[in-house]
């Protein structure tokens, strides 16, 4: 693959990552925050695949599979927490989840 092609991937991954960060920072709906975290993870995945292809090194793609597996597990746990939180406070607004403090 040419260098300019790689640049496009990098740009796309950066945009996706920044959208994810912004979503995490500014949205209050926990499900959206969650989705944004997934977005960031996938931006990184995209980067790994692009570099793997550019350097002809399959290691990067192997890494992606690991990340996907971990992300799946994380989603399962995270959504379970969310369900429990919703049952307790009847809301998924993260600003309401502020009881864990000093």
């Amino acid at each position, binding site marked *: 693959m040419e260098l300019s092609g790689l640049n496009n991937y990098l740009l796309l991954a950066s945009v996706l990552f920044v959208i994810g960060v912004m979503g995490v920072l500014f949205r*209050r709906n926990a499900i959206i*925050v969650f989705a944004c975290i997934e977005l960031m993870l996938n931006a990184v995945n995209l980067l790994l695949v692009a570099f793997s292809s550019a350097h002809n090194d399959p290691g990067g793609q192997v890494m992606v599979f690991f990340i996907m597996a971990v992300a799946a597990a994380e989603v399962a746990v995270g959504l379970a927490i969310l369900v429990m939180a919703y049952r307790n406070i009847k809301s998924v607004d993260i*600003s309401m989840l*502020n009881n864990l*403090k000093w």
Partner: protein
Amino acid sequence: MKNLIWLIPILPLAGFIINGIGNKALSRGVSGWLASLTVLGSFILSALAFNSLADSNAVISVDGYQWFSAGNFNLEFGFLIDHLSIVMLLVITGVGFLIHVYSIGYMSHEPDYARYFAYLNLFVFFMLLLVMGSSYVVMFVGWEGVGLCSYLLIGFWFKNQEYNAAARKAFIMNRIGDLGFLLGMFLILVNFGSLQYDTVFEAAKNMPSGAPVLTAIALLLFVGATGKSAQIPLYTWLPDAMAGPTPVSALIHAATMVTAGIYMIIRSNVLYVMAPFASQIVAVIGAVTAIFAALIAIKQNDIKKVLAYSTVSQLGYMFVALGVGAFSTALFHVVTHAFFKALLFLCAGSVIHGMGGEQDIRKMGGLKKSLPVTHFTFLIGTLAISGVPPFAGFFSKDEILAQTWIHNPLLFTVLAVTSVLTAVYMFRLYFVTFYGDFRGTHHQQENLHESPSSMTIPLMVLAVLATVGGFIGLPELFHGPHLLSEFLAPVTAYADAYISGSASHAFEMNMIIISIVVLALIIAFTRSYYVKRNNIPETDSQTEGFSLLLSNKFYVDEIYRAVVTRPMDVLSRFGYNWIEKGFIDRIVNSMGLLTNGTSGMLRLTQSGNIGFYLFAMVLGIVVLIALKLVI
């Protein structure tokens, strides 16, 4: 025989373990007799060893296993049964057995029966180790062990705080002496490269006589001996040690443990012969202790305290004998003293038992009729310790006096005066306790009883020994063989070659006649004073003048308190208040305060606001990336 030697100390140890673990589960009869029989077993084995030693004249040495080695220093845990240790073994196990049997009767009202016998067996084990070891280290193990048992038994009735204090005092005083012993051992190791007796003594013989290092070793070992054998300045623990049960006083604080110092010096006789200055110190300290303790004994009113000071005084005699180089004579007195002093203590125990715990002789009197066996055996003990011929004490004491006369007439005078004092305080004790009218309470008089046969039989056996024990060392005058010194000759051969001489026959004859006359006068005088004129010792408040000084033991305890204990108290209080509280505690506390303060501020960041956490997380990532770009 050689294969059985190790059983001698193991038997009492087994008794200790069984009694210690079985404790309350064992019935009284079992634990008492088990303890006694283990010691009897050791006695029989020792007697067999004595036979084989006397037959073949060959020292039994048991190579033990290698205990530890460091660099080129190897230490073996071995046993050595020679002519010296076999005599000690026979005394320890023989007298020990009698006192175990006596204890069965004496302690019969005691709830903590098994614990008592466990300690007593442990003591015998350590004492046997002390005399059987083939090196100074094994001796030291036993030395510390008997100190421990002495502590445990003095504080046997641990609910009484005074007894606990007495136990601690004994332990600490002994520890001071032990430090001297330990330093002496280090010096030996540095100079001779070994602590095995044979190696050390062979090496010492090649050194010049009076070499400073030998003098230092001898003096340091002697410091250890003053602690264990209760000599000035470390003697004050022994009278207080009378807090323990009376059989313990008889076994540990009269017959065996306190003679450990004497044994150690006889064992090291080569070192002392090569260090004349140290020997002189030994003799002088012994003589001063002898007369000092005898003076105190005259004005004591506690039956056990009199005997305790008498023990200190008699130990002083033995040290004089050691100091003038008469090593076999010292051992002779150890043996006879073990007989008659154990006898006297056991009689005192029998009196206390009959009186229901009373120890003050001013509240006794007239016990002759109610305690016939005790009275008779006590009389024999008194005659023996006063040196009335032909009882045991006469021969050993006169031998010490004769040997001292040859080497140092001044010390002889001191000892002669002491032996007069000895007779005075012993006959005072005897007449005040057994003659006159009964001065106790009505209740005591009704319950006055002779002790059971488990107590009186050991008394009778010891009385026989105290009567005939002296015949193992007849003076030359009678042309009989001096069995003991001939038997001991291989051990003291080197010393005998250096320091020789015996008193002339005329001198010995004079000594015997003079001592008989003087003793007869003393007996007549004390009898007329305490029996005919019925004087009883005055109460504490009536005592005045020199008597007051004596009855307060020359205020030595008070002096020690002012000179040693008080400054130590002040020092430790200073350490506690200023160094501990003012310095160390403050550092530790401010560490805590610092942690508390910083964490108090840091925890404010834990706001619980998830948006803030996420913001902090992103900020962190940005900072990390920025750092990565910069560096």
